[in-house]
């Protein structure tokens, strides 16, 4: 996986005359481990998002279980599902309402590129939320497994802090029956 470790510190902290690097790093670590996602289920992927939050996959191990219905209390928007033309405005409004610093995860193929609903002459689906939102992490799949969403959150953590604290999991090689 291509992981350009762009440190989120420079981009998310407003420039001031005096900066404390260690403090900033600490703050980034704190932020990365207490992401509050917004409950923002659009379609199929939302169910996998719920699964990720439920007992078995337990997002709270990464500090991201506090799903907030209000955008004012959330700092992570997980776009889980298809965004269509009618939903475009509400998504924009919700994103604008979130407080800084804020991040976006595009979960599932629909959010990344329109997914299976992208075809020639289609009239209603937005082909990728990155056309109007600054997406930080993409999680492909249709829908992605909850592990993939966790991986996305870890990826975001890496983006914010610049380091990865968790081991990487390589899927076992396929033994096809």
């Amino acid at each position, binding site marked *: 996986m291509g992981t350009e470790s762009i440190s989120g510190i420079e981009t998310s902290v407003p420039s001031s005359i005096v900066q404390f690097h260690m403090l900033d790093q600490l703050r980034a670590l704190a932020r990365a481990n207490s992401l509050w996602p917004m409950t923002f*289920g*659009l379609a199929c992927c939302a169910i996998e998002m*719920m*699964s990720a939050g439920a007992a078995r996959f337990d997002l709270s191990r990464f500090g991201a279980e506090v799903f907030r219905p209000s955008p004012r209390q959330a700092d992570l928007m997980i776009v889980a599902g298809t965004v269509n033309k009618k939903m475009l405005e509400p998504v924009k409004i919700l994103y604008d309402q979130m407080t800084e610093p804020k991040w976006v995860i595009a979960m599932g193929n629909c959010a990344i590129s329109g997914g299976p609903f992208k075809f020639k002459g289609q009239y209603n689906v937005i082909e990728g939320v990155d056309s109007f939102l600054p997406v930080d992490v993409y999680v492909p799949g249709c829908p992605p497994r909850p592990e993939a969403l966790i991986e996305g959150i870890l990826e975001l953590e890496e983006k914010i802090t610049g380091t990865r604290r968790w081991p990487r999991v390589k899927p076992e090689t396929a033994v096809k029956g």
Partner: protein
Amino acid sequence: MTLLAQSQLQETFELNIGPQHPATHGVLRVKVIMDGEYIVKAEPVLGYIHRMHEKMGENRTWNQFWPNLGRLDYLSAIAYNHGYAGLLERAMGIEVPERAEYIRVITVELNRLQSHLLWFGAFILDLGGFTPLMYAFDEREQILDLLESVTGSRLTYCYFRFGGVYNDVDDDFITGTRAFIKRLRPQIPMYHDLVTKNVILMERLVDIGHISADMCRKYGATGPVLRGSGVNFDIRKNEPYSVYPELDFDVPVYHECDSMARYMVRMDEMEQSMRIIEQALDKMPDGPVKAEKAPKILKPPKGDYHFAVEAARGTFSMRTVSDATNTSYRMRLRSPTYSNLSLFEEASRGMLLSDALAFMGSLDLVIPEMDR
């Protein structure tokens, strides 16, 4: 006149719920006109997840339309697969091997179980109880593991094919399913102890959200909503398809017409689904899982066809107009919650807002299926 003054004069105000609201289970929007805490008019607004399924039916070949069926109602996707398979098998006159039909029934019922479990958890979450969600998801994950070992996906199944299923089930699946049924069986009385008999739940559901049988008929409501209104109607019994006539199960019917009745119908349906799965596992014969004569390129004869199945939320029926080419001329998907929600406006009149949200939860909505 300012808006405020206007609303004071009329003593009503408008409230917007959604499209992003925790109580609407997705991107449903409800425009509500309120008089204090009471609803004068609640108008659902759809379309926030309209995904052009019907249009896609017209510009994809019959085989290429399969993935769409898994994404309509992602909670009972296999039942939708069944509807589409049945439709084309009816149109083309394809005979399905018996083993394939049993596998279909087993997977559909497992899928129904997980759908009802998810609804159970999410519905109680609407009412303010968080714990049951965890229990329900625990059981649900077991079902998803079973289904994943057969179909390869967790949610948006694309498992059926015209004339059979994608691949056979193995012994692990059969023993796993039996073990799971054994595990789930005692859980349901536990749910009743934990949730159903709880005073708070009773207070919020009993005698709330009254839907009469006639209203159901006028609005075309089906599934647990209809059965909670005292009408004994289930496509599996009334318009038998697949191997359902060979299986012995009851259709739970409650006559109270309230939210509690709909809740109880679904809880009882879980038991019936388990019965069906057990019987189907016992009766499943050996043999092929795919019709040998199933044509690769499908061109159903001219005309229109209709097929209905009982999905987890009610009657899902498909109507297609074929012009004897390899794509459909017109594909119409009739989704149950579309009709079920259309009675919301009438049924919620005069209700308290908090009750209306509980009532909406009892309708078991899946928004992408409604918008199609």
